[in-house]
């Protein structure tokens, strides 16, 4: 499943990043890499923007970007 399908409070393990360069490098360098645990902390009412936790950082990203991250629900 994709990151945007996780509900608030749910976590997953990152499987693959489908984003194209240079976004892919950006995500990787922010710690969004294969095998890491990722958690959805919040999203806005319309589910447009997500607040996720990976490693020790919080990152805001849009649904479009979240869609490009393959996760396995924990």
């Amino acid at each position, binding site marked *: 499943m994709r990151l945007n399908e996780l509900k608030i409070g749910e976590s997953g393990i990152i499987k693959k990043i489908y984003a194209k360069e240079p976004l892919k490098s950006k995500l990787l360098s922010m710690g969004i890499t294969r095998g890491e645990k990722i958690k959805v902390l919040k999203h806005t009412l319309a589910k*447009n923007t997500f607040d996720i936790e990976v*490693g020790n950082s919080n990152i805001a990203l849009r649904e479009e970007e979240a869609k490009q991250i393959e996760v396995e629900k924990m």
Partner: protein
Amino acid sequence: MKEIKVALVGQPNVGKSHLINSISGATLHVGNFSGVTVEKKEVEFEREGIKLRLIDLPGTYSLHPYTPEERVTKEFLLKEEYDLILNVVDSNQLEKNLAFTWQIADIGKPMVVAFNMYDEYSKQGGEIDTDKFFKLTNIRAENVSAKEKFGLERLFSKVIKTYEEKNTPRVYYSEIVEEEIENLKEKIKECKFSKRFVAIRLIEDDEDIYKIIHEKPWYSELLDVLKAAKERLRVEYDEEDTKTIMFEERFALSKGVVTQIAKKARKETLTEKIDKILIHPILGLPIFLFIMWAIFQATFSLGSIPMDWIDASFGAFGEWVGGLLPDGFIKDAIVNGVIPAIGAVVMFLPNILILYLGINLMEQTGYMARAAYVMDGVLKRFGLQGRSFIPLVSGFGCSVPAYMAARTLKNPKDRLITMLIIGFMSCGARLPVYVLFVSAFFAPEIQGNVLFAIYIGGALTGLIVAKILRAVLFKGEPEPFVMELPKYRFPKIKAILFDLWIKTKMYLKKAGTFIAAASLIIWFLSSYPAHEKELQNIPGSEKQAYILEHSYLADIGKAINPIFEPLGFTWKETVSIIAGLAAKEVVVSTMAVLYHTPDSDETSKELVETIRKNISFPTAVAIILIIMFYSPCLAAMGTFWAEVPQWKWRLFYTIYPNVLAYLMALIGYNIALLFS
């Protein structure tokens, strides 16, 4: 004296600029979100008889730059001369930060690591063993806190020592990667970078390095080896993209090193608790609007408290100076020109400081990034994205840094749209004009709200313009929005007061130099020619008015005035508005000169009264609307021109806000006429 040129490199928001400030007493801009520093800055200081030249660079997540400001850092590292890299690391985010450390270690320059934010890390029970780190990587490191100012002296002793020993990092990847690096190194001949660095960058498809070695004679021989190397890595790592392989490689290395050098810290929970409320799915937006409202309300009501006091001081000062000087040209110029003008501008310093404090607190606490998150959905509807929010809010302070901050937007279209509407976010210098006119024409109970409405009105118009620009001139999707939300931090009171003091100094300096000079010119042009002959037949009390109405400035103003007549302007308003193109404070200082009646014991606060008597309400509305929308000051325009190379956009930017301002004022004026 011996000199060491030190480049401060690290991921965004790790405290690079703060560290420089703490060691050298500089006043670089610091803020708790990523992308505060967007251009290279240099600061010097001395230790142990050595001059250290510190280069503050924009933070970058990796050596594969994403945004223009990240590119600045890479260009510096590849193209410029420096002796040593000081890599600043956020101790709270070791794994992620060290993955970048390994990338810059590849360059092969002498390097030192600063584990910054150690105050926070150790408070949560974390520890880092820097000796162990040195043993593992051959990089000297120190645990420091830029905020609490510890470890910094030791850090720079290590910098000097590393420089003297020419001590370079020894960071190795897994065996397979290292083997391929060795294979490639054999094919790499002369080049200004180390062979190892070139080999690694080629494996991870670094376009910039490709471009540089493309012309080398040995390039073609290398291609086969490179192809084989990448192929082997793909198979071994079961991943198509070798860049990704290197990212994962470094991340794994980080994890390994961290388990050996660090005692894990407890998780900080405060941020999550605060975020439960501040970025609540439903409450988030109302809370943001409330915060903005509160800032403008405070700007108005708290700011007006010291006004009378400043006003009285300038009045008394003017009289005192007047008493000292002999009658004549100089006395007139100073007492009737410069002092009332400066007084009128300085009177609004408290308002400006409060507004600045509000914006500064948003930046320092980490709320700015949250507001961007909350606003992202709204901005998206207008064809922008959350990241644009930060330059836009800085625009409420000053447009110059706001234009610079737009560098954090990757997509050139997003960047241009954002820059084209920054001017509609009324800057601090416009505040005095608003406060003056709002105090003169609105009931005290609603003045704060009117001010808020002016700012919101400007911002909304900006968003609508953005939407139109996006639909008409910049078709296409906005860039992806990905932004780190830093943990909440609370700046020291002392640091905040110091910022305010710096701001005060700058404002007073501007009032004492630029504004003083401008008002001197205005005074001269409005007091001459003297018309000695005509004045003989005019009674004493009307002499002054006669001179003013027949001055050079009146001639100029009256020549232009037909354009502004539909707005009910007299030549005095016309001149003030046009003078405001130089700087917005000049609008107020010019009015202070033109409406000043000498020899009365009038003071600046009475400027409010004079304005009320001389200007009609509809004209006041028109003036406010023009100030809201027309071109910003010369300094801001210069910055835009420097940042945007295309002539068509420069021209567009220079013309369209003025057309818009005029139309808005025309509409506003006529609506106000209906009601009054």
